[in-house]
C-alpha cells in the first residue's frame, strides 16, 4: 500500500515522537509513505484558521487535496484534528459545485484543481478497514497482555459523524478499542473517551483545559488504566504535557502515561521504545514499559 | 397567598400576548402555566397566520367573508369583523417584536396560499410559524420581566360573590398548594385534544380551563365543533400542515386521482378543512384509500423548495415515518386537531362569569363557528389575547382589594388528599384511553344519533369508574401521577360538553356532520349550542342556545 503522507504540523514540531513512530510502524505494516507529493501542503487550519475565515480554510484544504490527487495516491493522516478538519472541508466542497468552482479559481494560479476524488483517511481507519484486524494480528510479535489501556479518540475523529462517514463505515466508531484488543491489551472503558481534551482552549482558558485533562486522566486511572492511547498529537500534548498541572488540581499525582497510536503498534511489533521516542514524554512511560516486560 | 392585578392561566400565544399587554401598561401581571411557557402547544402550529394587508390591495372584508363562509355561517360576524380588521396591525406588531417571517422578493413579508381563501394572505415562518411566534413572545416576556408561576397546575377557580377572584394552584415541583388572587383572570389554557385518540395535540391539551370555567358556571359554546385536520401523518397522527397544500401539494387516492375534484372542484385541496376531511374519509370508506390513509404528494415541488418552505414537514415525515417527501407521497388521514367550541365570551373576551376572561383556543367568541380556517387560530390568539387584556385592564380599575379568605385552598387540599388516599383501583391511562377511543368513534368525521348515544353511554360508564381511579405514587415532588388523575376529571367534563352539544344540534354544519341529518338547517339551527354544568338538571347538564350575530353576510349555500 502506498499513500500520499500528510504528517500535519505537530508531528514535525512539538510531537516528533509521533512522526518517528509512524515511520517505523508503517515500515513493518508494509505501508509505503510518499513524502514528496505533500511536501508543500499547508496546515489544514486546525479549525482555528476557519474561525477567521471559513472559505480560506476550505481553499487551503482544497489545495492539499489537489496535491494528493496529482500524486494519484490515497491521502493518509496521522492526526485526529487534521482528519476532522479535512473531512469537514471535503464535505462542504463536495456538497456545493458552485462553491468548489469558486475555490478552484483560487488554485488556478498554481495550476492546481481539486476534482473531488480525495477521501482522506487516518492511520487508525486504514488499520481497521484497509489492512484489517486479522492481518494486523498476524504482524504482532509481542502480545501486550496485562496492559490496560484507556482509548482517547479526540473530538475531531468522532464528530460530526456525518462528515466522518460513520454511517457508511460503522467500524470507525470503536476502531481504537479494536486495535487495543488486537495487540492483546485490555480496553478500559471510561466516559471521557470521546470527550474533549481541552487543547483548543489551552491558550485561552487554561483552567478549563487543565480541568478537562484532570477529569479524563484521573477517571481513566481510577478505572484501572495503566496508560492512555490517542490518535491525536494535540490531545497528546494536552494530556501529557499539561498533566502535571492537572495533577495539582487533584492534589495528587495522576501519573498516567499517554502514548500515540503508532507507539502502541510499534511496541506490539517489537520496535525499540527509544526509536519511537517513548523516553521523550513528559509523563514517564517507564512503569508502563516494565509492565509489559519491555526495557525503556 | 399571592396577589396580582391580573392573573393569566396558560402561557401559550394568547396568554403571553395578554401578559405582555398588561406589563406594558404598568400592571402587576402574573402567568400560571403547568409547563414552561416555551413548551406550550402553540409551538406546534405550523402553517402561518392570516392577515389582510390593505396596503397590498387586500380587503379585510374579503378575509372576514372567507372566515364566515369557512365557519359555515356559525361565526358571530361582529367578532369576525374585529379579528379581520385588527389582523394587519397584529401581524406587523409581531414582526416588530422580532418574528423572522419569510420574506417576498421585495423584502416585505411574504405570503402563501391557505385553505378556504382565494387570496394568499397567510404570513409564515417556514413550517414553524407557531414556534417562531411563541419564542418571540417569550423573549418579550423575558425583556419585560414577566412573573411566571412555572409548572403550577390550576386545580380550581376561586369564585367569591359570583365574581372570579383567583385560583388554587398546585406547584408540581414540590406538591405545595397555593392561593393566587387577582382582580381579573384570563383563561388561556388551550384545547382538549387528549379527549380524543388519536389527536395532533400535545399530551398537555387536556381541556383544563374549559372544565374549570364549566364547573364554575360558565357555558361552553358549540362544543360539538371539533376539527378533524385532513393531513395527519399515518400511524403517529402528527400534524402535517395545510401549508403543504398551500404550497401546491396534491391529495391522491389509491387510483392516483386528485379526488378533491369531485368534492370541491373550485378550491380543490384548499377547500375548508371539514370538507377535505370528509372527502378523504369518503374515499377511504369507499375502498380507495391505502391502509386507511390517502396520499399527500409533494414530489412535484422539488427537494429544494420543500426544504426551504416546508423543512419541518420533511423532518417529521422522515423521522417519524421514514418517508422522503421529495421522493414519495406521504400517507395521511384525518385526525382530531382543534376545538372551535369553547368558553363563551363576548367581543372583549369576557365570559358569563364576571372577572373571568377567556382567549385563544379555550375561548369561543365565536370567530371560527363550525369550522376554523387554517392560519386563523394564531390570529385569534394574538387579537383576542390583547383585547381581553385591554378590557381587563379597564375592568380592574373598579375592583376592590382581594379578600383574605383561603377557604378554597382548604377544600382543595382535602380533595387532593382524598384522591391520593384512594385504595388501588383503576389505571388512569386505561380509563383515558377507553374514553378517548370511544369519543373518536362517536364524535368523528361522521356522526349520527346512534354513535353520539353510544358515546354518551360510554361516558356514563367512564364517570362511574372515575371515583375508583387511583394514584399509586404518593410523593410530593413532581407527582405527575396525581396530575394525570386531575386532568382525567377535566377531560371527562370536556367529553360531556362535547357529547351534549352534538346531541343537541340537529343538523349538519361545518365540522359537525350527521349522516342522519346531512343538511344544514338555517331556519332552526342558525344558533349556538350552550352547555352549562347545572346540578339542578338531569345529568347535571343544562342546554340553552344563543343567536348568531349577522352583520353583513347572509348565510348562503357553502360550496368549494
Amino acid at each position, binding site marked *: 500500500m502506498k499513500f500520499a503522507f500528510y504528517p500535519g504540523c505537530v508531528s514535525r514540531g*512539538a510531537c516528533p515522537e509521533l512522526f518517528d513512530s509512524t515511520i517505523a510502524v508503517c515500515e513493518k505494516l508494509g505501508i509505503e509513505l510518499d513524502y514528496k507529493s505533500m511536501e508543500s501542503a499547508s496546515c489544514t487550519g486546525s479549525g482555528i484558521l476557519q474561525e477567521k475565515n471559513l472559505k480560506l480554510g476550505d481553499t487551503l484544504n482544497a*489545495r492539499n487535496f489537489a496535491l494528493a490527487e496529482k500524486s494519484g495516491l490515497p491521502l493518509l493522516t496521522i492526526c485526529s484534528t487534521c482528519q476532522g478538519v479535512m473531512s469537514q472541508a471535503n464535505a462542504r466542497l463536495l456538497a456545493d459545485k458552485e462553491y468548489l468552482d469558486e475555490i478552484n479559481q483560487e488554485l488556478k494560479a498554481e495550476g492546481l484543481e481539486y476534482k473531488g476524488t480525495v477521501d482522506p483517511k487516518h492511520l487508525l481507519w486504514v488499520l481497521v478497514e484497509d489492512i484489517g484486524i486479522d492481518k494486523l494480528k498476524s504482524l504482532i510479535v509481542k502480545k501486550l497482555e496485562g496492559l490496560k489501556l484507556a482509548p482517547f479518540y479526540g473530538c475531531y475523529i468522532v464528530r460530526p459523524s456525518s462528515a466522518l462517514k460513520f454511517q457508511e463505515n460503522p467500524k470507525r466508531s470503536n476502531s481504537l478499542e479494536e486495535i487495543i484488543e488486537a495487540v492483546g491489551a485490555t480496553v478500559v472503558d471510561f466516559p471521557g473517551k470521546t*470527550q474533549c481534551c481541552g487543547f483548543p482552549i489551552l491558550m485561552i*482558558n487554561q483552567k478549563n*483545559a487543565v*480541568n478537562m485533562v484532570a477529569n479524563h486522566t484521573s477517571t481513566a486511572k481510577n478505572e484501572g488504566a495503566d496508560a492512555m492511547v490517542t490518535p491525536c498529537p494535540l490531545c497528546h500534548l494536552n494530556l501529557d504535557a499539561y498533566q502535571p498541572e492537572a495533577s495539582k488540581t487533584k492534589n495528587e499525582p495522576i501519573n498516567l502515561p499517554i502514548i500515540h497510536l503508532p507507539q502502541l503498534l510499534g511496541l506490539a511489533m517489537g520496535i525499540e521504545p527509544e526509536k519511537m521516542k517513548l523516553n521523550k514524554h513528559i509523563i514517564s512511560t517507564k512503569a508502563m514499559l516494565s509492565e509489559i516486560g519491555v526495557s525503556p | 397567598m399571592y396577589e396580582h392585578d391580573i392573573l393569566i392561566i396558560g402561557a401559550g400565544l394568547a396568554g403571553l400576548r395578554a401578559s405582555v399587554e398588561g406589563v406594558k401598561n404598568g400592571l402587576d401581571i402574573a402567568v400560571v402555566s403547568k409547563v414552561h411557557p*416555551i413548551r406550550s402547544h402553540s409551538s406546534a402550529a405550523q402553517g402561518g397566520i392570516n392577515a389582510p394587508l390593505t396596503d397590498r390591495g387586500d380587503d379585510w372584508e374579503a378575509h372576514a367573508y372567507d372566515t364566515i363562509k369557512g365557519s359555515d355561517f356559525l361565526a358571530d360576524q361582529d367578532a369576525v369583523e374585529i379579528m379581520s380588521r385588527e389582523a394587519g396591525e397584529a401581524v406587523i406588531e409581531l414582526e416588530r417584536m422580532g418574528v423572522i417571517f419569510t420574506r417576498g422578493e421585495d423584502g416585505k413579508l411574504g405570503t402563501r396560499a391557505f385553505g378556504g381563501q382565494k387570496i394568499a394572505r397567510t404570513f409564515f415562518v417556514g413550517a414553524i410559524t407557531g*414556534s417562531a411566534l411563541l419564542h418571540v413572545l417569550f423573549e418579550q416576556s423575558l425583556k419585560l420581566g414577566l412573573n411566571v408561576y412555572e409548572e403550577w397546575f390550576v386545580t380550581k377557580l376561586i369564585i367569591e360573590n359570583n365574581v372570579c377572584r383567583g385560583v388554587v394552584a398546585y406547584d408540581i415541583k414540590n406538591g405545595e398548594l397555593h392561593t393566587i388572587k387577582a382582580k381579573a383572570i384570563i383563561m388561556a389554557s388551550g384545547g382538549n385534544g387528549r379527549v380524543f385518540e388519536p389527536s395532533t395535540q400535545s*399530551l398537555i391539551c387536556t381541556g383544563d380551563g374549559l372544565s374549570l370555567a364549566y364547573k364554575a358556571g360558565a357555558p361552553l359554546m358549540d362544543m360539538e365543533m371539533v376539527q378533524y385536520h385532513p393531513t395527519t401523518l399515518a400511524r403517529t397522527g402528527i400534524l402535517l400542515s395545510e401549508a403543504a397544500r398551500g404550497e401546491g401539494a396534491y391529495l391522491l387516492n389509491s387510483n392516483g386521482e386528485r379526488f378533491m375534484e369531485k368534492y370541491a372542484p373550485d378550491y380543490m385541496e384548499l377547500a375548508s378543512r371539514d370538507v377535505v376531511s370528509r372527502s378523504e374519509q369518503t374515499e377511504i370508506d369507499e375502498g380507495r384509500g391505502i391502509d386507511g390513509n390517502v396520499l399527500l404528494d409533494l414530489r412535484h415541488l422539488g427537494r429544494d423548495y420543500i426544504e426551504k418552505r416546508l423543512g419541518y414537514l420533511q423532518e417529521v415525515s422522515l423521522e417519524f415515518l421514514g418517508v422522503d417527501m421529495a421522493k414519495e407521497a406521504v400517507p395521511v388521514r384525518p385526525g382530531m386537531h382543534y376545538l372551535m367550541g369553547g368558553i363563551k365570551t363576548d367581543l372583549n373576551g369576557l365570559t358569563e362569569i364576571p372577572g373571568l376572561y377567556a382567549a385563544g383556543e379555550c375561548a369561543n367568541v365565536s370567530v371560527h363557528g363550525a369550522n376554523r380556517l387554517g392560519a386563523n387560530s394564531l390570529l385569534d390568539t394574538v387579537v383576542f389575547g390583547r383585547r381581553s387584556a385591554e378590557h381587563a385592564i379597564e375592568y380592574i380599575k373598579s375592583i376592590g382589594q382581594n379578600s383574605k379568605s383561603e377557604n378554597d385552598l382548604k377544600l382543595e387540599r382535602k380533595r387532593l388528599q382524598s384522591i391520593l388516599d384512594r385504595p388501588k383501583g383503576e389505571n388512569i391511562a386505561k380509563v383515558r384511553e377507553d374514553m378517548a377511543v370511544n369519543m373518536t368513534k362517536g364524535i368523528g368525521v361522521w356522526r349520527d344519533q346512534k354513535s353520539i348515544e353510544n358515546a354518551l353511554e360510554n361516558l356514563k360508564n367512564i364517570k362511574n369508574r372515575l371515583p375508583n381511579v387511583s394514584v399509586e405514587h404518593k410523593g410530593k415532588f*413532581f407527582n405527575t401521577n396525581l396530575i394525570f388523575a386531575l386532568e382525567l376529571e377535566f377531560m371527562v367534563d370536556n367529553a360531556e360538553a362535547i357529547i351534549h352539544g352534538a346531541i343537541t344540534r340537529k343538523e349538519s354544519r361545518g365540522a359537525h356532520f350527521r349522516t342522519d341529518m346531512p343538511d344544514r338547517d338555517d331556519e332552526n339551527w342558525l344558533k349556538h349550542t350552550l352547555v352549562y354544568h347545572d346540578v339542578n338538571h338531569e345529568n347535571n347538564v343544562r342546554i340553552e342556545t344563543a343567536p348568531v350575530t349577522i352583520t353583513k353576510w347572509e348565510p348562503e349555500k357553502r360550496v368549494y
Partner: protein
Amino acid sequence: MGARKESILMNVNLKVKRFDPGDSEGKTWWQKYKIDIHEGSTVLDALIHVREYEDTSLALRCACRASICGSCGMKVNGNAKLVCKTRIVEVSPNGEQIIVEPMANHGVVKDLVVSLDTFFNQIKRVEPYIQADHVPEKGEYIATNESMENLLTAMNCIMCGCCVSDCTVLEVDDNFIGPAALTKAWRFVNDPRDSKRTDRLKDLNDEDGGIWDCTRCMQCVEVCPKGVAPMDRIMELRESTLTNGLTNAFGAKHANSVNKSIKHSGRIDEFRLPIESKGYFNIKGIFSLLIPGLRMLIKKQSPSPIHHKNPNQSKVKNIFKNFEENK
C-alpha cells in the same frame, strides 16, 4: 398513540436513572424495566408506557411527541437526545439494554426531569430580544429574504437543552454562556433589524465565558436534534468579532497568530503561537507558559524556535493575500 393498534411487538429493556428529592439520602439509583411495545416505537413511547402501566412514580417531561416543543431531552446511552424522535431500533438494534438518564449540566429535579434555570439563565445573559433603534413609520421593516432565511437555522432551536447537556466546557465551567445562548446571540447579531450588533459582539467577546471559551468539540453539533449546529454559529460569531476589529481577546490573538503563521510558513509555529496568544506584553500570561514550556523544551527538545517555511510557500501566501484583498 401509534403503539396500540399494531401487532408486531418487541421486547425492550430499559435501565433508568432515578432520583427522588423526597428521599432523605438524596442518592440516585438505577431501575430496570422490561416491556413489550410496537416495533416502530420511540424511546418516549417506551417511557410513557412505563409511566402509565409499570411505574407511576417515574417522572419525565414530554408534550408534543413531534420534536417541536423541546420538552423531552434526556441522555440515551450516554448522549443527549429528544426521545420522541429516537426510535428504539436506532439505539437498540439487537434488543440491547437502553440506558436513560437525565440531561447533564442541568440540576436534576426528579428522575428524568431537570431544572431549566441553568438553561434560561444562560439565554437571558445574551439579551434575547430585538433591540431596534429605528422603527418604520408604517408597515414592516424591509429586509431581503436571504438575510432572514439565514436566521431560520437559529429559529429551529426548540430550547431542548441537549447541546447544553453534552457541552464539554460546561462540564468543567458553569460560567460558560453555552451553545444554546450563543446561538440565540448569533440570531440577533445577524438580524438586520437589530441595532445593537456591535455592542452584542463586544459583550460576547469581552465576557468571561463568552464565545472564546468554546473548545470546538462539536458535541453540540452532533447532539442537536434540529440541525442548528450551535458550534458553527459560535465560529461565525468569532469570524464576525474578528472582522469587526475586536482583537483583544486571547482567542482572537490565537486565531490571528495561526493565520499569520500559516501565511508565513504554511504551518503552525508552535513556539510563537502560545506567546502571541497571550500577547507579547502580557508578562503574567507569558509567565504562566514558562514552566510547561521549559519542561517540553528540556524533555522533548521541541518545539523549536527555528521555524522553516514549506516549499512553494509563496503560492499559499498569494492565496492569503487574495482573500485579504477581497474582504
